[in-house]
């Protein structure tokens, strides 16, 4: 049986892991290579790295970090942040990324999804979406959740799938960093609209939030950052609890 995946997310700035609350206010957490090895050893199924640096220096530092991680940690690595062109795909793939997630870059240039899927394969292209409920609809935001777009989240997810995205990361702006649980209604709506794997992100604060997530929504993976970085519970403990609740995981 295919296992549900648990994925720690590492936001990297100037070679260090950071994590904000509601996208504002950063705190230094730890060294990315150390953290990646630790997570891999205690059962992480995959790692996501977001490059949140804006400068060229930060970007090349990020590539060095990625190379070091990819030389030591042999589980799938997804990279996002600052991916605006095929050259950006190329840059991070050469440093050891397995999948590349596009967000604002695809909003600015939707043809990037198809171009990347054709060049590197669907499995390589992850559409990452920052979603917030506006009235009765779910809207896509760009620029790290700061700018509202006209895009309807369901339509954008379908567009991604139809253009070759192999996976979708759904990050809820409403629940991100609040640790009160995943945005189940939003996840359910979008999961039912596509037939590619979906990773739920934003809101994980306890083991029961992950159990609730996998019991109620057809997602493939749950992503967490601060819950893991601050050792609220280990991934091994989380997976044991999931298993005890009848959820298939890799132990």
């Amino acid at each position: 049986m295919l296992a549900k995946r648990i994925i720690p997310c590492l936001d990297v700035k100037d070679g260090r892991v950071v994590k904000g609350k509601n996208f504002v206010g950063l705190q230094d957490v730890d060294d990315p290579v150390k953290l990646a090895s630790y997570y891999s050893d205690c059962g992480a199924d995959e790692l996501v790295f977001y490059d949140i640096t804006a400068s060229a220096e930060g970007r090349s530092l990020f590539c060095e970090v990625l190379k070091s991680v990819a030389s030591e940690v042999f589980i799938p690595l997804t990279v996002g942040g600052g991916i605006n062109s095929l050259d950006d795909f190329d840059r991070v793939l050469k440093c050891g990324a397995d999948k590349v997630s596009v967000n604002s870059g695809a909003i600015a240039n939707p043809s990037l999804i198809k171009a990347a899927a054709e060049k590197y394969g669907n499995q390589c292209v992850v559409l990452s979406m920052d979603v917030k409920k506006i009235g009765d609809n779910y809207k896509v935001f760009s620029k790290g959740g700061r700018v509202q777009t006209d895009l309807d989240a369901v339509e954008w997810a379908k567009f991604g799938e139809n253009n070759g995205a192999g996976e979708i990361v759904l990050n809820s702006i409403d629940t991100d960093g609040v640790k009160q649980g995943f945005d189940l209604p939003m996840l359910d709506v979008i999961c039912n609209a596509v037939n590619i794997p979906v990773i739920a992100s934003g809101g994980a604060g306890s083991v029961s939030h992950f159990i609730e997530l996998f019991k109620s929504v057809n997602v493939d993976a749950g992503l967490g950052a601060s819950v893991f970085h601050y050792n609220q519970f280990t991934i091994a403990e989380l997976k044991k609890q999931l298993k005890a609740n009848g959820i298939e995981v890799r132990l």
Partner: protein
Amino acid sequence: MIAIVDYGVGNLFSLSHSLEKIGAESVVTGEKKIIESADKIILPGVGAFGDAIKKLRQNGLSDVVANLARAGKPVLGICLGMQLLFDKSYEYGVHSGLGLIEGEIVPLKDVARGLKIPHMGWNSLHFTDENPIFADVNEGDYVYFVHSYYAKCANSLSATTFYGEDITAAVRKGNIFGVQFHPEKSGKTGLNILRAFAALR
């Protein structure tokens, strides 16, 4: 020394570093002479079958790999590299493969009804026959899969995984090995598989 065949498709960073990690000497190469002088060959690959087999032929490497495999050199095909070992594929048209293992590559959507495509993530192995590359792997261990097509294999199956039904996870025909999953992305289990392949005599 293991030659990782470089024919212009896929990302070989993890594969070469995972071999380095287990202490196996390897070289990423598209040169016939180096491949011929290697003890073992790994045929990697991601993307579409038609494009990959075309590139392998253009580089003149399809005959090199097939001839060495037939002559008894250990060959390990990974993911699309495994699929290339087969007779033919129905991925976007009909394409002939290297013809080293009997069977064909067909769409996963025909068996994984109602399931998401690609089959992406960690799935467990069920052994169906002996295979020395699984010497240090246990029944039920998880490995990492990413694929939308699968191999229908009649005679050389050595492990399956369940996705809608039992599908091919690994094949073996004498010195020719293939795995649908990515050992270089399958954590310690994957490294154990690569170590066992590297230790073959």
